[in-house]
């Protein structure tokens, strides 16, 4: 019975596909999986928008939307109707073809990323040998669409926002990949399904999630920082900072194209949270061995929504970082820490089982973090800025 609840969607798909002749079954299965992804993740996006607006509202000591439905839960429907009925304004000098294609490209690429996330036991759309690499390839393609949006608007502020966004995304691509490489190194496979299966073991009732190891915890923190920067979320949202650049690279978009950008950005957030849960928080595995009776996909979505709540929380709390501060942080602090983390992970592997490796690895990471942080702050003089490489 519980086994059936866990495999509910797999059994549902097999039942529907069973009605078709044998030659068509594989293709139909894939199509059903795609329909599932396209239905579920935009639904989560709708929930996320309500959570964000209410959550940010409460953190900023105001109420947030409360007119549409009880506690404003029908707000996404109101937003959808509004964006569909608004006039679609394209500037006269704008490059119409590229202007049209930019949001389309973004949404397509972000949806492709969902294809490799293992949502539950046996529930992944495409099980590839190198699925993590596919995910990062799709993530890298989002930068092209942002550039297309900023350039085609023929607007100084859009172009400036687009350049900043692309520079920030490229800079934080490196820590994102390097903190994921540690997980690949310790699992021995690039396949996300194998990574989750490697974390699905329990010692004394506690799981083997990678976040509970020293190198995994450090990698998770760096992954979280890089993920926040990759999706242009506060405190890294200078490219779309409302007080600086109007709306950055999507200033000239209105109506449905703006809604597509919004969708693409939030789906990107969901997607990267999904990858973070797969790599570090154990994907669909339960936190305690005793809780295995709860279906696996419930665990996955709970963890993803928890990550989203933390992202919203951070947005409401921290001030925005300036462009040179965030680039500084990326290249001078996070990248060396990821390299150190790689070496600490290797040390962990070769010290063998026992308590010694926990103490040694944790000590190395904590001491270097504190020392590097203090050394970095000592050289700062908070006067007028001078640039050495960008005059």
């Amino acid at each position, binding site marked *: 019975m519980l086994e059936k609840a866990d495999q509910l969607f797999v059994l549902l798909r097999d039942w529907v596909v069973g009605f078709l002749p044998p030659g068509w079954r594989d293709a139909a299965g894939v199509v059903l999986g795609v329909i599932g992804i396209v239905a579920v993740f935009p639904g989560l996006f709708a929930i996320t928008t309500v959570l964000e607006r209410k959550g940010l509202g409460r953190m900023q000591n105001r109420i947030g939307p409360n007119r549409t439905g009880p506690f404003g839960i029908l707000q996404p429907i109101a937003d959808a109707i509004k964006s569909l009925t608004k006039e679609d304004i394209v500037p006269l000098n704008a*490059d119409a073809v*590229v202007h049209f294609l930019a949001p389309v490209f973004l949404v397509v690429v972000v949806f492709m990323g969902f294809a490799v996330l293992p949502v539950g036991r046996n529930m992944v759309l495409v099980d590839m040998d190198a699925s993590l690499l596919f995910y990062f*390839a799709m*993530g890298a393609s989002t930068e092209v669409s942002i550039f297309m949006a900023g*350039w085609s608007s023929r607007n100084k502020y859009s172009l400036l926002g687009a350049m900043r966004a*692309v520079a920030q995304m490229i800079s934080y691509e490196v820590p994102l990949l390097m903190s994921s490489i540690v997980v690949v190194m310790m699992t021995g496979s690039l396949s996300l399904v194998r990574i989750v299966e490697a974390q699905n073991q329990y010692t004394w009732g506690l799981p083997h999630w990678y976040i509970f190891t020293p190198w995994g915890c450090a990698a998770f923190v760096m992954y979280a920082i890089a993920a926040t920067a990759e999706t242009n979320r506060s405190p890294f949202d200078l490219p779309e900072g409302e007080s600086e650049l109007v709306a950055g690279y999507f200033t000239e978009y209105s109506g449905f194209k703006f809604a597509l950008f919004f969708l693409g950005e939030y789906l990107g957030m969901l997607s990267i949270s999904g990858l973070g849960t797969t790599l570090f928080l154990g994907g669909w595995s339960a936190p305690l061995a005793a809780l295995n009776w709860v279906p696996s996909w419930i665990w996955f979505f709970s963890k993803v929504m928890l990550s989203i709540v933390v992202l919203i929380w951070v947005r409401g709390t921290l001030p925005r970082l300036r462009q040179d501060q965030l680039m500084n942080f990326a290249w001078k602090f996070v990248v060396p820490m990821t390299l150190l983390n790689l070496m600490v992970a290797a040390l962990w592997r070769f010290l063998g089982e026992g308590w010694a490796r926990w103490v040694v690895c944790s000590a190395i990471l904590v001491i270097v973090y504190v020392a590097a942080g203090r050394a970095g702050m000592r050289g700062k003089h908070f006067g007028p800025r001078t640039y050495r490489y960008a*005059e």
Partner: protein
Amino acid sequence: MSFVFWLLAAITVAGGLAAVLLKNLVHCALALTVVFAGLALLFLQLDAQFAGFAQILVYVGAVAILVVFAILLTRSSETPKDGGVFSRTWGAGLAISAAVFAVLGWVVLQSEAGLPREISVPNVTVLQIGNALMGRYVLPLEIVALLLTAALIGAVIVAMHEKGDAK
């Protein structure tokens, strides 16, 4: 040669033609991105997963952005060139490119005879690539790393102002 191959080949060739025939330079760069994506899909169609994804990650994600930044920061892409996209010396260009293509085609066709006859399509996994890179080909890997470090340092030095220079 399956239908998928012809479709991908058509997309790649169309993108390549667009990249040289379009007037607006940034459009050409975006058409080049389509070519890179088409090549990646061709790799995937041949079951070379690692090569295909690395192609997207490196070319579409980094090289295309680099090309676009270079175009934006060095010349005005607002006004397209008067007089079309063909230069005055197009005949010489055509002759040279035909000669290069002939040499490459001859080399490829000649080498096909020297390849061992495979019974089935080899299934190259990422594990094998990793083992090969760290085992047999570790020296080329280190040399390439050295080359990339030198390029990075060179780029920083070129972009940097000396401390004593007038700003």
